[in-house]
């Protein structure tokens, strides 16, 4: 199997991921991306560069965007993690996911999760961001397929959708 045998120096970790409580013993050097993917088998968090530049592995930790390749699993002890698997609920897509479909904001789809998580955090802070504010967030990650125009349209569309659902 992917995971290693329980380690002698393993550290106990309690974390809530997408609303579900998990308890694990992890190698101190295991990063959060590997923990989510290998231990919890939540494989929607993709890994693009493993050095914190591309933003594809973004997850939310206590509501903050985090590069899961740069954070150790043990650092999320006692915290709340949201991943792409936590976006759609009850068989219904999240408005951000809907918007990406409508605006063709994805092609290969490998990087999209990282964008969506960062945008989730943006909307929590600022439900109606300006184009510059959107660019500030989108500018932190890399997409090789779309050329970003369609991603900007997707975020604007999502903001409109979520605004409409609030009012």
């Amino acid at each position, binding site marked *: *199997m992917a*995971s*290693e045998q329980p380690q002698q120096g393993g550290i106990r970790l309690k974390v809530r991921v997408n609303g579900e409580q998990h308890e694990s013993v992890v190698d101190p050097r295991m990063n959060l991306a590997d923990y989510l993917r290998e231990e919890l088998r939540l494989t929607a968090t993709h890994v693009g560069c493993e050095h914190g530049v*591309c933003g594809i592995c973004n997850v939310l930790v206590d509501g903050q965007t985090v590069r899961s390749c740069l954070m150790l699993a043990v650092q999320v002890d006692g915290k709340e993690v949201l991943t*792409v698997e936590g976006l759609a609920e009850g068989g219904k897509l999240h408005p951000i996911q809907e918007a990406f479909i409508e605006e063709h904001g994805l092609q290969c*789809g*490998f990087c999209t999760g990282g964008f969506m998580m960062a945008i989730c955090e943006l909307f929590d802070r600022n439900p109606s961001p300006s184009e510059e504010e959107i660019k500030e967030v989108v500018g932190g990650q890399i997409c090789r397929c779309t050329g970003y125009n369609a991603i900007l349209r997707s975020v604007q569309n999502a903001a409109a959708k979520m605004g409409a659902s609030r009012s």
Partner: protein
Amino acid sequence: MAIEIPKNLDELPTTRPRYVGRGIRRVEDVGLLTGRVEFVDDVVLPRMLHCAILRSPFPHARITGVDTQAAEALEGVAAVVTGEDARRWSLPAQSSPEGWGTHCIAGDKVHYVGEPVAAVAASSRRVAEDALELIEVDYEPLEPVADPFKAMKPESPQVLDAQETNVMLDRVFTWGDVDGAFAEAAHVFQEKFRWNRLGANPTETFGCISEWDPMSLDLTIHGSIQSPGMFGLGRAATFSLPSNKVNIISHAHGGSFGGKGGTRGCDISCLLSRKVDGRPVKWIEDRGEYLLSGGGQAWDRHYEVALAVDAQGIVSGLKVGLVDDLGATGEAYGAISAAKPLAAFTGPYTIPVAQYDLKLVATNKLPCGPYRGMGPPPHFFVLEQMMDIAARSLGEDPAEFRRKNFIPADQFPYTIASGNEYDSGNYGEVLDQVLALSDYSALRAAQVEARAEGRLVGVGVANAIEPGVFDWNAYAIVGMPGTGVPEGATVNIDILGNATVRVGFSLEGQGQYTLVCQLVADYFGYEPENVRVVQLDTQSAPPSFGPGGSRLGVAITGAVLGACERIREKMARVVAVLMQSEPENIEFMDGKFTLKGAPGAEMTVAEVAGTMLARSDLLPPDIDPRPEATHVWTAAGRTPADEEGRAKSYLTAAHAVHIVQVEIDPETGMVEIQRYCLADDCGTRLNPDTVEGQTEGSVVQGIGAALLEEYVYDEDAQPLTTSFMDYLMPTVFDAPKLEMVAVETPSPFTPLGAKGCGEGAIHTTPAAVMCAINDALAPLGTSAREVPAAPMRLWKLIKEARERASDENNNY
């Protein structure tokens, strides 16, 4: 019975196409957005091990010893392989020019930094990487060569021991009386250009899981593989296996752009699997490995170009000299990139004669592989600079200078000097559209004002041909044999009338599964979301190449429509029997079979399928009762290449004109793209939204090429760009707002008149941006001839130009 594949949308058996020709929601998206699509690194197989690869820190060194004992003793390590295992169980890479391939793990000598030297299979990637640190390799460093001009000299260090030279190919291809054209020319323009190494960098690197059973010798590979069929044949050749012993299961992958690479790593995981008795071995390339030694470096080129122009300003001849640095071994089909320009050598122009002086050279750098466009983007970059040099020198507007050299719309199909035939085009119309879109005269007026204020504002006009639907014959000059690239699809209607289409390629991002659904929906009167597309592995799939060479949209359309036609033909025979008539009296439209002259006598596709499967007893014995058909589509009329490489190769010729406005900050050398307008014509647009997506993405990759991306090596061939901090990928801040307009000149040769369009804008963008930069620099009397036009390079040019100007002033 011969089938007829619809040549245009009107020939589809529907009153009005409801889906083909429109943008629709992609069937791929929900799975991708929820993380349910399985990428290869998501796959876990029973008893799976993990591979890590030890790589050479030297560009050129003799290996005098490899000690793996300590690594093998580490807990969790299952096996270690070295060059010895590679020599025992595999052959050198077949993707190099003949005689230039090496084994997947170095033997006596390393040829570039990052070349595999040993590899470990262990219980986890972390343990495997720990084990790498315990492997002792003794190197005797040798003098490296990083510069292809030095490499061509007799006294140069030899990259490969097996060769007596570093020159893989040195030939001049001449098409027509080039010397005559240059002798008679009123003007001859010459210039040198440098295109630095860049590459694909898909967001997902390569990955695979290999299972090679040492008893049966069956080899199964899961992977993020762009061309599963070719990849499987390659592995069969490398491991001397019968091709039916190799099965490739390609997973959805996070982009490719030709640069997925991975063959060396995959071969190494196969060797490890064989050594551990067939247990699955996963190898996931990390980004550092990709940048250092992956499949994504391409086009390390030095050009010397000459253009002959007559007294009327008509271009009468073109000479292109190219020294192409293919890196150490030329593996991964890098040489193809130098051959592909033959498919569109003279661009959209009537240039009657041309010459290609081509040198493929080995150095101690990573072997170059494919990248989106596969060679023509640098070629058009130099051709379009030459057109600007000529226009500027003759005092002509760059748009109008191009226009008068265009192939006229009434001369298609048109055979170019290098042998390929362009299917159709309306270049003047495409130019008119983008001139109007950009309000070109206003751009020029604004430029005059900006120049008066001393600002460096430039407007670039550039255009290119995108060869579409590749054929192997285009690459004959670098030794690729053969003609014809088949693509197959099986369409099946089940007992309840639902359609499933089985194909041989995986999701990559271009939306081809959506296209398949659109086609079947319009053909049979279905809804696209009810059509299911299933990908088969290579042992089950119909013949398939998959995406590549801007072919799949056209090819899969031919395959799917061909299969639909075959089902219709078979069903019409069934309906004829049931209605006690003849097949020629049965008509098919909007999903219904009707009997001519018998109103009310009709059957739906579902009814016919249900009858065929549930009541096959009613069918005549010569009818196969499956409502299923496979069609294999291949481009018609392709010809073998002649001695000079001339062939009818790529089936379609798409065209685009881009107009770009830039401003350069003279204090920093930074380029700001202020407007980006384009018009393009890729024939019938089967899904305009996905075509637009390909264009938008390709423009930004082209901007990366023009301004940012470069794999830098020092003079000792040490790579200096091994992270995304050093290799600069475009972000949203580098992506201009795009203004686009479409022209549709259908191809007379393809299903529905569509042309290849997936590689797209990268053919034109680097040229257009560079034309704009040089237009901005023109008042300073300097020009940039090297991409990327990074701030440091432009700043230096501007500074030198100003110093020259002030020296001249001082001399007065």
